[in-house]
C-alpha cells in the first residue's frame, strides 16, 4: 500500500504539480510516459512519488509518446487505472493511438499541457495541439488555472471510468501560463480524493484469465459504422449528464462549482467573448471593468470541448447580439476552431447573431487587457449596428501591418 501524504488545506502549486498530485491521489496503476516541455514535471513528479513510496503502481519510461499511449492502451485493456501526460509534438505523435484508445473504449486519462506546434519550433502555450485530437473520440475538459487542473482530473477519472461511458478523457491546461504558474490550490486529503473517484472497476479485462477477451478487432463496411455511431451516440447522449453529475457531486464535496459552459457577467449581456484556457480569466477581469463602466459585456468559457455542449452554449448566448470567438490556434486556411463550432451551433438557434473570429496568442504571445478592451469595443459596435462593422477574422497582436480577413 502506498503511503499517505499530508497536504495543507491550501498548497502553492503550479498546474503541473496540481495535476500530478491528483494522479497520485487516485493511485494510478500504470503510467507510461515520455517527457516534453511544458508537461514534463507531471511525470517527473509522479516518478518522485513512486521513488518515495507515495504510489505503488508501475511507471514505464518509454521511448516516445506514441509508445507512451500504446503502453497505456495495453495496460488499460489489462484492467487498471492508467494515465499519462504530454504536449505539442508529443501529442501530435500520439494522435494515431488516441483513436485506438477511444475506439477500444479504454478510460485512459491524458493531461495535455497545451503548446504550439512546430515549425517554427516553440515551447510556449497555444491550443494548436488540442485541436489535433478533437475528433478522436476523447472527452476533453479544459482547466484555466492550477486549481482547476487539480479538480478536473478527479472529474475526468470519475466520468471516464463510469461503465456507461468507458471513454478516455483529456484534461487540458495552458502551457507555462497554467503549468508553470504557482497559485494557492485548495486540496483534498488523500482518502477523500480517492473515494471521490473510487476503486477501479475493470470491464472485459485481459487479465481475467478465465474469460479471455479480444480487443481491437477488424471491422470493415459491415460493422465499422455501427461502432463509430455507438461511440458518437454515447458521447452525445451520455457524457454531458455524467459530467454534470460529477460536477454536482464535486460541488457537494468541496463547494467548488463547475459548469459545462462557464458564464461570467452574462446577465443581460449584449456582447460576449467565447474563449478557453487562461484567456477566460483575463476576459473576466476586463468584463468586470467594463461592467463597472456600464457596458453589458460577458464571458463564456468552454469547460467541455468534447462532447461539444450545443444546448448549453445556445442557452448561455440567449439574447446576446454580437459574439467574438477567440481562437488560440493557427487557423491556417480557414476560421478558427471555436469560430467554426460556434457558427455551426448558432445557425439554428433562432436568433440573429453577429459572430467575429479573433485569433490570438500563438506560440505564447500575450493577450493583454488592452487587446480585450479593443475586442469588446468592436463587438459593442457590431451589436449596435446589428452587423459586422469590422473584418470577420482578425489576428490580434501580430507585428507589422494589421492582418484581417473579411
Amino acid at each position: 500500500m502506498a503511503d499517505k501524504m499530508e497536504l495543507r488545506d491550501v498548497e502553492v502549486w503550479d498546474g503541473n504539480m496540481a495535476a500530478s498530485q491528483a494522479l497520485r491521489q487516485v493511485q494510478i496503476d500504470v503510467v507510461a510516459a515520455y517527457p516534453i516541455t511544458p508537461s514534463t514535471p507531471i511525470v517527473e513528479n509522479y516518478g518522485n512519488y513512486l521513488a518515495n513510496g507515495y504510489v505503488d503502481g508501475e511507471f514505464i519510461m518509454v521511448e516516445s509518446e506514441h509508445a507512451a499511449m500504446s503502453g497505456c492502451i495495453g495496460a488499460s485493456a489489462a484492467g487498471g487505472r492508467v494515465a499519462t501526460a504530454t504536449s505539442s509534438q508529443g501529442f501530435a505523435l500520439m494522435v494515431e493511438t488516441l483513436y485506438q484508445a477511444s475506439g477500444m473504449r479504454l478510460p485512459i486519462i491524458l493531461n495535455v499541457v497545451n503548446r504550439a506546434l512546430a515549425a517554427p519550433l516553440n515551447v510556449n502555450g497555444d491550443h494548436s495541439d488540442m485541436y489535433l485530437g478533437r475528433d478522436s473520440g476523447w472527452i476533453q475538459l479544459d482547466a484555466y488555472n492550477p486549481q482547476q487542473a487539480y479538480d478536473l482530473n478527479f472529474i475526468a477519472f470519475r466520468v471516464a471510468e463510469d461503465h456507461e461511458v468507458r471513454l478516455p478523457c483529456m484534461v487540458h491546461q495552458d502551457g507555462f501560463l497554467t503549468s508553470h504558474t504557482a497559485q494557492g490550490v485548495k486540496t483534498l486529503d488523500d482518502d477523500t480524493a480517492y473515494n471521490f473517484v473510487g476503486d477501479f472497476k475493470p470491464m472485459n479485462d485481459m487479465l481475467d484469465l478465465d474469460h479471455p477477451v479480444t480487443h481491437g478487432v477488424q471491422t470493415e463496411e459491415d460493422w465499422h459504422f455501427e461502432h463509430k455511431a455507438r461511440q458518437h451516440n454515447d458521447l452525445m447522449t451520455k457524457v454531458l449528464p455524467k459530467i454534470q453529475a460529477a460536477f454536482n457531486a464535486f460541488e457537494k464535496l468541496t463547494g467548488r462549482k463547475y459548469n459545462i459552459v462557464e458564464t461570467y457577467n452574462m446577465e443581460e449581456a449584449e456582447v460576449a467573448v467565447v474563449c478557453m484556457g487562461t484567456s477566460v480569466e483575463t476576459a473576466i477581469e476586463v468584463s468586470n471593468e467594463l461592467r463597472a463602466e456600464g457596458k453589458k459585456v460577458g464571458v463564456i468559457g468552454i469547460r467541455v470541448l468534447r462532447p461539444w455542449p450545443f444546448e448549453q452554449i445556445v442557452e448561455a448566448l440567449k439574447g446576446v447580439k454580437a459574439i467574438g470567438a477567440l481562437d488560440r490556434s493557427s487557423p491556417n486556411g480557414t476560421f478558427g476552431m471555436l469560430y467554426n463550432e460556434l457558427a455551426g451551433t448558432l445557425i439554428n438557434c433562432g436568433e440573429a447573431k453577429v459572430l467575429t473570429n479573433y485569433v490570438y496568442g500563438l506560440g505564447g504571445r500575450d493577450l493583454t487587457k488592452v487587446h480585450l478592451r479593443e475586442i469588446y469595443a468592436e463587438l459593442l459596435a457590431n451589436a449596435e449596428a446589428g452587423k459586422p462593422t469590422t473584418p470577420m477574422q482578425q489576428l490580434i497582436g501580430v507585428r507589422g501591418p494589421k492582418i484581417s480577413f473579411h
Partner: protein
Amino acid sequence: MSEMKKIKNLKEFSTSADRFEGANLLCPGCAHSIIVREVLNATNDDLILSASTGCLEVCTAVYPYTSWDASWIHIGFENGSTAVAGAEAMYKALKRKGRLKQPDREPKFVSFAGDGASYDIGFQWISGCFERGHNIMHVVLDNEVYANTGGQRSSSTPIGGSTTTSPAGRVSYGEKQHKKDMLSIMAAHGAPYVAQVAPNKWKDMVKKIQHGFSVEGPVFINAMSACTTEWKFLPEDTIAISDLATDSLVFPLYEIIDGRKLNITYRPKNVIPVKDYLGAQGRFKHLFKPENKHVLDEWQARVDRDWEYLQRREEAGV
C-alpha cells in the same frame, strides 16, 4: 514456474487447437497459422497476446468473430510489442497491489508481428521494450514481405526478391539489399534469449519457445513464415519450401543466450544449393535468366559466408 508442456507428437500437435482456431481467413498453406499454433501449443500457461497489423491480425479477429481463445489485443501496425508490455506492467502493478483475479496464475505475454511490423515500422517500439526488460516474447512471422498490403518489400526482403515495390524488370533483378540481420541486433540488446525458428522443424521450435518462456526478460523469436501468395508456390508446399530454406542454410536455425552464447540447433546432413530453394518460388524466377547469374552467385556466397560466421561465433561462444 508452472510446468511446461511436454513436446507432443506430430498427431497431437496437429489436432490440438486449444487457443488458436483453424477457423480464420489466412490463405491456404499460410505458415503464419502453423507457427502461431506451434508457439501456443508449447505452453500450458495462460496467455496474453497481441498482434500488430498484418495478415495474422486481419485474418483472425474480424468482428464479430475471433480465432483467439486467449486474451488478445491489436492496436496498430507498430505498437503490438508495447501493448503487451503495457499489459505486463499492469499485471505487475495489480499483483503488487493484491488485485489480480487469479493471483496464483502467471500468464505469459506474447506479441506476434510480421517482419514489416518488426524490422521496419515497429523496430523502435520493440527496441524500447527490450531495453526496458519487459517480460514479453516477441515473435516475428517473417515472410520477408508486407503481405497484408499486397507484397511490398520490407527490410527483411532478401536480395533479388521481386516484390511490388522492388519489382524485377527489364533492367532490374528486384530487391538490391540483403536481408537485415535482426537476430544480431536483438541479441545486442542483451536479451536473455533470441532464436531463429522454422515451422518444419517444430520440435526445435517448441524447445526454443519453452526456453523463451522459462527466462525472465524479453525474448525475440524470428520465425520463418513461408507465404504462398507472395513467394509464389502451391499451398501444399509450405513445409517443403521451409525444408529447402533450412537445408540450404538460407534460414539457419540457431539461438543466442544472454546476448552472447550462440548455439546452432540444426545442421542439415546434406546441405543443398541455394538455387534449389530459390528455384522453387516464383519471386526468384527471374534470377535464373543468364544476365542475373551474378545474383545467384552472390546469394550462394552470402549464405556460405554467413554459415561460416555463425559456426565461428558458436565455437568462440560469442
